[in-house]
């Protein structure tokens, strides 16, 4: 609730929060678009991809995101393969990845920063995003 109120305020004063990018990689359109909606409400610029391959193709075309929200089970290229590919790329390997999945325990062993279990709790989502996107950025705190 607090997060929302604050974001409403920040929306009125857009200068305070520098624009930060978040990439959402999720195959289910309903979840993807809802995530986009809520993350945009928080003042972030959102890019979406419906599978790992699309995500990888999108990354060089955008300003390096402060966070990637990643689903695990996806067609074409799944979350595990996406992380593998990401970790092999010198430019992309440092981007924090947060897994959003029903099977949170499957994310074990992946070098993900956090795991958010589906169904997603918005407060948990906001807390996690803030944790990774406000590092070294006092204005967002």
């Amino acid at each position, binding site marked *: *609730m607090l997060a*929302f*109120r604050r974001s409403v305020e920040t929306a009125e004063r857009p200068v305070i929060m520098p624009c930060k990018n978040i990439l959402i990689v999720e195959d*289910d359109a*309903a*979840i993807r678009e*809802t*995530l986009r*909606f*809520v993350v945009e*409400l928080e003042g972030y610029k959102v890019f979406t991809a419906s599978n790992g391959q699309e995500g990888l193709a999108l990354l060089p075309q955008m300003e390096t995101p402060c966070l990637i929200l990643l689903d695990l*089970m996806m067609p074409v290229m799944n979350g595990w393969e996406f992380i593998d590919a990401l970790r092999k790329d010198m430019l992309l390997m440092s981007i924090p990845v947060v897994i959003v999945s*029903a*099977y949170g*325990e*499957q994310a*074990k062993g992946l070098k993900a920063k956090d795991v958010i279990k*589906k*169904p*997603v*709790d*918005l407060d948990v989502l906001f807390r996690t995003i803030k944790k990774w996107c406000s590092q070294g950025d006092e204005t967002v705190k």
Partner: protein
Amino acid sequence: MNKMSLTTCLKNLWLGVLTSFLVVFAVSFLMKDLFFWTNFLVLFVALAFVLSVYFDLGGRGEKSEKEIYELNAFMEAVIENIPDMIFVKDARELRFTQFNKAGEELLGYSRQDLIGKNDYDLFPKSEADFFISQDRLVLDEGRHIDIAEEPIHTRFKGERILHTKKVPVYDELGNPRYLLGISEDITEKKRAKEEHERFLQEQYARREAQKNLQLRDEFIAIAAHELNTPLTALRMQIQILNKFLPQIDSDKTQTFRSLLKGSQLQIARFSKLVEDLLDVSRVSTGRLTIQPEQENLSEIVSRVTESCATELEKAGCDLKLHLDSSIVGSWDVLRMEQVVLNLLSNAMKYGEGKPIEIKTQKDDVKAILSIKDNGIGVAKEDQKRIFERFERAASIKNFGGIGLGLFISQQIVNAHGGKIYVESDPPKAGSCFIVELPLQRT
């Protein structure tokens, strides 16, 4: 018969020639006088021939008498010791004239008792009728008969099953003189075969059941995942609506608030069901793991009971807590909350609105959590079963639920190295679920 054949004569002759030649050759070689010793060659050949013919003839005559005797003894030994029953009946009256040892043992009579008797003297009429009819078929039609299975009543071994062959034996004029019967006792073989078939059937059924379980587990995993996807979107959308609530016209706020609260409550129920199904598929794939951290068990209980205040009120159950505040151990906090919540939910559901008592205590090695209600109780025969997946003791007509709470609770408790069980003694009211957790995990 005693005359030597031409080929044998020739063979002997050649042997004689060969031997003589070798001897002459050796001697002439030593004496270095070939001509002199050649004269002896003819003499040697003749002598060897005569001797070999003589010995061969005499030998043959002596052997053939001995052979007949030995052959008889041999045949008798075979017939007597063969493990199958061998019997002979005379063709006219079908009375037994001969029996071997296996026959005596099988039928339970001595040879003296059997010889001269017919089937009607030894077996029930229906059996004897059948034996005689088969005998007649063999003798009248000159057929060999193979009876794959025939039951026979024996004196000491009860009913046995025989595999019998019957063969006619003719006299020199070609008339049937005897009936020869050979019977193998296949009772054990048949029983073993039946048992083996039963075993195979059971094995097949077991494998099928296992396959079905696996299919069910796979289905649950897929169903849970598929249900979870729209649920995730729905839950987020309702949360967003909730956050927008303050911006809605004040006159409608109250209606919206209660509608949203209701929706959230239903989604929470839905999430719980889906989460239970996901847990089942975690268990079946060995992915139910625990993440232990130091925590006070009584605090876990307090948190859960506080969150259930509304439900407790609705269920009309008074809650009594006896919590030992010093029980600290290494537990997966979220999972243990799940166990307490499951047990408390059951207590409310089956507690008939009567008081519920939760107690935590410890001894040297373990923490003990008990949740006692005063409701319908669990029958003795159901007390193990209710911890299996999809099992329930109460009728689905009276109580809802998919029967996973206790199964998951048990899996969580087991993963902690503990155990869970129920004490209940219907018709005495109430049941008490007890969870024991080791204080030091090994």
